[in-house]
C-alpha cells in the first residue's frame, strides 16, 4: 500500500502496576477507510489498547503516530480525540447528560460548534441512526440497546475520521444488532472493532486479526471445523440462506 496509515502503533508495551504485561511490543496500522476486526478474548488488553490510542493511559514504551504526526503528550491527544471516536463497552459510562439531545450535542459543542449547529448535527446523527424522536428522552430511562445506539450517536456526532468500537454487539438483541451492522456498513470512515463474535465481525469488517499474548496476530490458517445445528423438522431436506 502506498498510502500512509492514519494511525500507526509501534512497539507498544504496557503493564498495569504489579501485573503481568498486557501489551507486548504491539504493532498496528490502520489505513484510511479500512475496517479491521479484532478478536480478543477477555482480559487480552483490548480496552487497554483503545485507551492507549486515545491517550487515556500512557504506554511504558513504543510510539504512536496519528494523522501523520507523532503523538505523546496530553496536548497531542486532545487533537487525536477530536478526530477519533471511541465507543465504550458500557454505554452508561458514555451517556452522562440528562437528555439524549444534550448528550449527543456535548461533543460538537466541545469542538466549538455554536448551539444551533450542535443541535442540527445532533438531530441529523440521531435520524441517521433511526433514532429520530429520541431527542427529549431521558438517558437513564433508555433500554440497553437504545443506550448503545445513542452512545454511538454521541460519537458519530463529532464526525470522526476513525471509529474505535469496544464490544459494540455485546448484549444486543438480533434486531438492534442488525441495525448496528446496517449503520456500520453505511459509514465511509475507518474503524477498528473489538469483539469476540466472529459472525458479527465478518459482516462488518474486511480484515480480522486476533489479539493474543499482548500482540496483534493474523491468523489466516484455514482450519477444519464442524457445524452442528438443530431445529424442528430438521430431518426434512431443506436449504439455509
Amino acid at each position: 500500500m502506498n498510502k500512509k496509515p492514519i494511525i500507526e502503533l509501534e512497539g507498544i508495551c504496557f503493564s498495569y502496576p504489579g501485573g503481568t504485561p498486557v501489551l507486548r511490543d504491539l504493532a498496528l496500522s490502520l489505513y484510511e477507510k479500512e475496517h479491521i476486526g479484532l478478536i480478543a478474548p477477555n482480559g487480552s488488553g483490548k480496552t487497554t489498547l483503545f485507551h492507549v490510542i486515545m491517550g487515556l493511559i500512557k504506554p511504558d514504551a513504543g510510539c504512536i503516530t496519528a494523522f501523520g504526526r507523532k503523538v505523546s503528550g496530553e496536548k497531542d491527544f486532545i487533537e487525536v480525540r477530536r478526530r477519533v471516536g471511541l465507543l465504550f463497552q458500557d454505554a452508561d459510562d458514555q451517556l452522562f447528560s440528562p437528555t439524549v439531545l444534550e448528550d449527543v450535542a456535548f461533543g460538537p459543542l466541545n469542538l466549538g460548534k455554536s448551539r444551533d449547529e450542535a443541535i442540527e448535527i445532533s438531530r441529523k446523527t440521531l435520524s441517521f441512526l433511526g433514532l429520530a424522536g429520541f431527542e427529549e428522552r431521558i438517558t437513564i430511562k433508555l433500554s440497553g440497546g437504545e443506550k448503545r445506539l445513542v452512545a454511538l450517536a454521541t460519537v458519530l456526532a463529532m464526525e470522526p475520521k476513525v471509529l474505535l468500537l469496544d464490544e459494540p454487539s455485546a448484549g444486543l438483541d438480533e434486531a438492534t444488532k442488525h441495525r448496528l451492522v446496517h449503520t456500520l456498513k453505511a459509514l465511509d470512515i475507518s474503524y477498528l472493532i473489538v469483539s469476540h463474535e466472529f459472525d458479527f465481525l465478518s459482516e462488518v469488517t474486511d480484515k480480522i486479526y486476533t489479539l493474543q499474548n499482548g500482540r496483534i496476530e493474523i491468523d489466516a490458517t484455514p482450519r477444519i471445523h464442524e457445524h452442528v445445528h438443530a431445529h424442528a423438522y430438521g430431518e426434512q431436506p431443506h436449504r439455509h440462506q
Partner: protein
Amino acid sequence: MINEPFAIGNSIIHRIDPRIKIVAGTLFSIVVAVSYRFPTLLSALVMAGGLILAAHLDLRAVTKRLLVVAGFLVLLWVVMPLTFEGPSLYRIGPLTITRPGVTLAAQISLKSLAILTAFTALITTMNFSALGHALDRLRLPGKLVHLLLLTYRYVFVIEQEYGRLVRAAKVRGFRSKTNLHTYKTIAYLIAMLFVRSAARADRVDHAMRCRGFNGRFYCLTDFPRHWRNWVFGSLMMALILGLGAIEVLSVKC
C-alpha cells in the same frame, strides 16, 4: 428509581420560567424562615397552599410527601413543650407543658410546612435538568451545577449497582441479623460500592475527555420570554413583600 411525578403537568405553574420559580421559592423560604408572627406564618401557609392548587397537583400525593415532615414535627411537639423553660400552661402530674415551648413548636411546624409546600409547588414542578440549567443561568458556580446534574445522572446507576450487590449476597443465602457476619458483609457491600463508583467515575471521565470535554458544560435549553413570567414574578414578589410587611407591622403593634 427516583420519580418526578409532579414535574409532568401543564398548569400555569408548570409553564412559568424555572428561574423565576427558583428565585420566588428561595425568597419565600428566607422570609418565612426569619418570621415569627402567627399572622405571617399562617398567610404564608395559605399562599403556599394556593400555589399547590394553581399547579393542579395530586393533593393526595402532596399530602403523602408532607407526612414525611409530619413525623419529625410530632417528635418536636413531644419534646419542645416539655423541655422549654417558661410559664406553665398545663400540668400533668410531674410534667409541665410550657407556653413558650408550645408557641415555638407551633411556629416551627407552620414554617416547615409552608416552606415545604411552596417548594413542592414551585420546584418539583420542573424536571431535574431544567433545575440544573436554570441554576446555571442564574449564575450559580458551574461546578455546583455539574455536581448536581452528574449526581442525578449517576445516582440511579449506583443504586442499580447497590441492588446487584445486595441480590448477589441474597442469592447466596445472606440474611441480615445482629451479628458480626452481617456487619462485615454490609461493610464489604458499602466498600465495594465506593470502589465501583470510583471506577465508574474514572470511566465517565475518560468518556468525557474522549469527546473533547474541557471543563465547561454548555446549556442547550432555551427559556423563552413570555408575559406570563413577568406577571407571575411580580405577583410573587408582591406577595412575599406582603408577608414581610405583615411580620414587621405585627412586631410593631
